[in-house]
């Protein structure tokens, strides 16, 4: 190892230390509290709050999303001019199942379009990022993507808000922030990523991440595993229970029914 290499290693080590410790005055932090959501028998959604500290004077955008995947949906259209039917199958790629964006101000007012596309922030950027088929042209894509957003918002999996992030004045040029978001019960078990972007002059200057883990526990977990992995036994138990319940209620009614 020559002297120059040694110097580089030393420099790299120092800069690494500086990075993880962060500059004393600034630095964006993010923490999702209640980051481990347990789906039990009585689960009806939850709340997740995201909080941390950013530099004073920066705007913030918080994105909560599941990993990107694909969706297959049925398109409804008119047949013969007046009958609504499923006419085609729409396939989407690179779309998260859950996607919510919260910002201090409207995104268009604080972020450049190139930056939106780069970090996939906002519905229009997500629309450009998504691959869809079959589509005829750009207008067709825009139309079906907005239908897709409607469908997702209807099941509470997509959401946007602006101005709901609570900003305070902190010490030494810092700005603590806090937002409480509703976690929809429609969101399936899985890993979700919370990304906080600090924005200044139309650019993302810093970002920080946190995770939310959603998991089934107890009876819910047992039943859903059995349904997936042991379908025959699960079906058998379902049928026997139904037969037993039907017969049992029949017997109760005979006893209560009197002189029939």
């Amino acid at each position, binding site marked *: 190892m020559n002297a120059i290499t040694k110097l580089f290693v030393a420099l790299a080590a120092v800069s690494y230390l500086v990075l993880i410790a962060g500059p004393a005055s600034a630095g964006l932090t993010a923490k999702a509290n209640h980051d481990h959501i347990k789906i039990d028998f009585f689960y009806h959604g939850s709340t997740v709050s995201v909080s941390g500290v950013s530099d004073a004077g920066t705007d913030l955008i918080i994105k909560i999303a599941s990993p990107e995947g694909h969706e297959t949906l*049925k398109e409804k259209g008119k047949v013969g001019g007046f009958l609504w039917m499923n006419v085609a199958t*729409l396939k989407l790629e690179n779309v998260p199942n859950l996607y919510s964006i919260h910002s201090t101000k409207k995104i268009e007012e604080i972020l450049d379009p190139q930056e939106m596309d780069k970090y996939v922030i906002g519905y229009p950027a997500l629309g450009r990022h998504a691959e869809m088929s079959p589509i005829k042209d750009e207008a067709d894509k825009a139309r079906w993507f907005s*239908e897709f957003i409607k469908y997702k918002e209807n099941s509470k999996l997509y959401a946007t808000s602006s101005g709901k992030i609570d900003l305070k004045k902190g010490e030494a040029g810092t700005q603590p922030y806090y937002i409480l978001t509703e976690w929809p019960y429609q969101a399936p078990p899985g890993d979700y990523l919370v990304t906080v972007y600090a924005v200044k002059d139309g650019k993302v200057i810093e970002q920080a991440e946190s995770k939310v883990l959603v998991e089934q526990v107890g009876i819910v977990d047992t039943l859903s595993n059995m349904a997936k992995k042991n379908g025959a036994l699960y*079906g058998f138990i379902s049928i026997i229970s139904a*037969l037993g319940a039907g017969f049992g*209620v029949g017997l109760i009614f005979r006893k209560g029914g009197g002189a029939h």
Partner: protein
Amino acid sequence: MYLYLPVALTSINIIIPIGLGLAVGLLSGLFGVGGGFLMTPLLIMFGIPSTVAAATDSNQIVAASTSGTYAHWRVGNVDFKMGLYLLIGGFAGGLLGVQAIKVLKATGNADFAIKMTYVLLLGTVGTYMFFESLSSMRKKKVEEEARPEKESGFAKLLARLPLQTHFAKSGVTHSLLLPVIFGGFVGVLGAIMGVGGGFLMVPIMVYILRMPMHVVVGTSLFQILFNCIEVTFLQAYTNHSVDFVLAVLLLLGSTVGAQVGAVFGRKLKGEQLKVILAGIVLAVTVKIIFDLTLSPSLLLAQAGGH
């Protein structure tokens, strides 16, 4: 109170499935239909994925039809022999129907043809039943049961078929082939349209097999019970789409509803039952027509299911 459904992956207020179960179970005990036509779309409306809604409903019908069959059997209103032949036909028809779907799908635009056939069939059956039972109610008042059964050409043709046998419970004599063929016909349609077919089976038993209305209801439930056992198992085994928790909530209502329906049905005359059923069939037809013609609020829907 809310409960989480482990297969549907959603949460539901338990009052909804119990109430739905009660209402649909009542129809089941009264008329001998499974009620899937009503239950499946309502479950979808309350946020249950369509595949899970259809599969779980069939599990629930197992309970409701056991309860209903038991109630009707106690008063001697189940023709097991007839039910057995209908089942044999229905089973074969179901297998045939699954193949027919594949052929239809390959031709494209099958959805349109299927929906139209369904609407026309329901509309025709409902209208015929409505007017027939109304007129027979009037006739009865005038002639007081003195109804000389007119032998139509169709009835003579049926009487000439081979393998004639007597169905004691129903008090009719038919060829064995008759329930097998018509059971098969309903089985094919059921598989293609994704419905149990009680709405078609009941009128066939009343008008073609000429069974008394009260025996029709009990026998139809018996037949539905076995169909739904088969469907539940296949859905659980191949599609993993039966939600046990949802099924239990539904059957809490439907088993009780079926008993109440059976007791209530005994107090009504056959013609009265037919008129009400005809009214419901027509209402369902109108509802499907509305669904087809009104602009939907969402143009995208989950794939899979019916």
